[in-house]
């Protein structure tokens, strides 16, 4: 068995070496020309930092849902599904992968010597600053990166006066236990910046159902808008009559792509959320 595995890896490695075709390996010599992203969060950073012609492809997920500005860019870009074959076919100068990128793809790229940087998911503003600078530096867009970060910091400063004075108790509910964002999430970071507090971050019962949501009594429910218009069974629970009755006008929708992936424009969405929370408060919650 080990022998077979060895032959297998040898074959694959030579395959990649052929595909790499003796091209100069981009590295510290200069900024890479064309960049490919294998992770939906890195898609956002690339689309923010680089002009479209320098992006080889982004993941198909970036066309599904997210910030409307970035969605529009993603519609015009080629898309990939995170596979090694696609990287070989596209021959980018740099691959930006994430921790959740298919492990096999990552290992094969490393072996084939295709330059790759790996970005861990971030959960807070400091993390967003860090990865934005990291990617900006590597792709040679340092100025653009600093611009984005400055805009984000301006938003965060503005939020200090825009958020409701008394935090609004909020819970994310998409109709199933796995749709409830808990502690240590970017959802929490955005929510807290916007003057909310996530009731599911301190109390975590064993699984959620509608009854549990009612008993936790948040003032506002937030439902991901990722797949609106693409029905699933959980929609019936997300918008159960008992919730619609009690939370009329207090169910906000949010783009899951923005709340799940840290990039500078998240601050703009935090300001929108602050506005929405203020409006719910003004309308008079119990």
């Amino acid at each position, binding site marked *: 068995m080990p022998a077979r595995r060895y032959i297998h890896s040898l074959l694959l490695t030579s395959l990649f070496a052929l595909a790499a075709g003796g091209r100069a390996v981009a590295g510290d010599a200069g900024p890479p020309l064309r960049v490919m992203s294998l992770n939906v969060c890195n898609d956002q950073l690339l689309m923010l930092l680089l002009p479209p012609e320098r992006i080889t492809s982004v993941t198909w997920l970036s066309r599904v849902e997210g910030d409307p500005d970035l969605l529009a860019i993603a519609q015009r870009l080629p898309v990939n599904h995170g596979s090694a074959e696609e990287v070989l076919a596209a021959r980018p100068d740099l691959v930006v992968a994430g921790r959740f990128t298919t492990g096999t793809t990552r290992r094969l790229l490393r072996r084939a010597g295709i330059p790759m940087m790996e970005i861990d998911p971030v959960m807070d503003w400091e993390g967003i600053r860090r990865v934005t600078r990291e990617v900006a530096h590597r792709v040679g867009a340092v100025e653009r990166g600093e611009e984005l970060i400055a805009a984000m910091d301006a938003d965060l400063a503005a939020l200090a006066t825009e958020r409701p004075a008394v935090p609004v108790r909020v819970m994310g509910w998409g109709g199933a236990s796995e749709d409830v964002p808990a502690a240590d999430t970017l959802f929490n970071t955005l929510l807290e910046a916007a003057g909310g507090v996530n009731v599911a971050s301190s109390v975590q*019962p064993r699984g959620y*159902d509608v*009854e549990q949501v*009612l008993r936790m009594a948040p003032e506002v429910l937030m439902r991901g808008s990722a*797949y609106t218009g693409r029905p699933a*069974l959980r929609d*019936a629970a997300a918008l159960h009559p008992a919730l619609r009755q009690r939370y009329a006008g207090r169910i906000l929708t949010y783009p899951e792509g923005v709340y799940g992936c840290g990039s500078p424009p998240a601050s703009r969405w935090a300001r929108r959320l602050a506005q929405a929370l203020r409006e719910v408060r003004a309308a008079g919650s119990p």
Partner: protein
Amino acid sequence: MSRRGLLLLLGTTVALLCLLSLMAGRTGLAAPALLFDADPETQQLARLIFLELRLPRMLLGLLVGASLGLCGAVLQGLTRNPLAEPGLLGVSSGAALGAVIAIYSGAGAALPLAVPVAGLAGALVASLLTLALGSGGGLLVLVLAGAAVSALMVTGTALALNLAPNPYAVWEISQWLLGSLTDRSWQQLLLALPFMLAGLALLATCGRGLNALSLGELTAASLGVDIRRLRWQALAGTALAIGAATAVTGAIGFIGLLAPHLVRATSGHEPARVLLPSALMGAALLLAADIATRLMPFAQELKLGVLTGLIGAPFFILLVLRMKREAP
């Protein structure tokens, strides 16, 4: 115990389980007295929890359980096969496939009635397929045909969920294959109700014909029973009751198999006398399983099919062993 005693016992058990089902929740809010609480906030919350969540869930458990129990008894009588039941014959998985297509394609959102109707159509197609494949081949061929059709329908369900535009669809596969009553609403119950009631009525009136059939097809025909009509009545009843029920709850296994066998020793072996006790037993089993899913101390709520399978599968094995012993 007499059949009358059995009916009394089962009736009382079902009534108690209904009450318990209303009291059982994951949050510990138990006393229906809170519906009349002095604090308007508590009263409103209790009203939502009892009237909008637990009451439709309890009624759904009662009706779906009774449908499965009754349908199992009728199918066992009709095919004269102790292993016949909607789950093993592929009817439940066919219904789930129909409902899955209707919901995830968006048809259900545009026209809610499409969901139970598609469930019914799926159940009908699956049962026709199983009967066509398995007829005339003896006890085991029918069960084999059911297994084949069931496999086809389950695969179809998985395929439909994989192809669904909503990526969460794949997460929901367990709900369709194992069944669940969590977070169902009046709307879902009321949509399925007319179909289920019509199906229950058709199934419940099969008794006399089934009794005659138990003496053999020729004898039954000589007694004036129209066997073709009886078959279609049982088939339509099954499609209506199981199709509509499964469209709301997903496929729930083994209750249709267990219920008739559990009551037969006491109620007598005449098919007509098994029907009512079997319906009550089915309701009791499903209500009890659904209460258990809420009270088990696990992080995730167990799916109904896990519990019915834990009791049903060993029983199925016992039945197979007994058949082996009795067969030459």
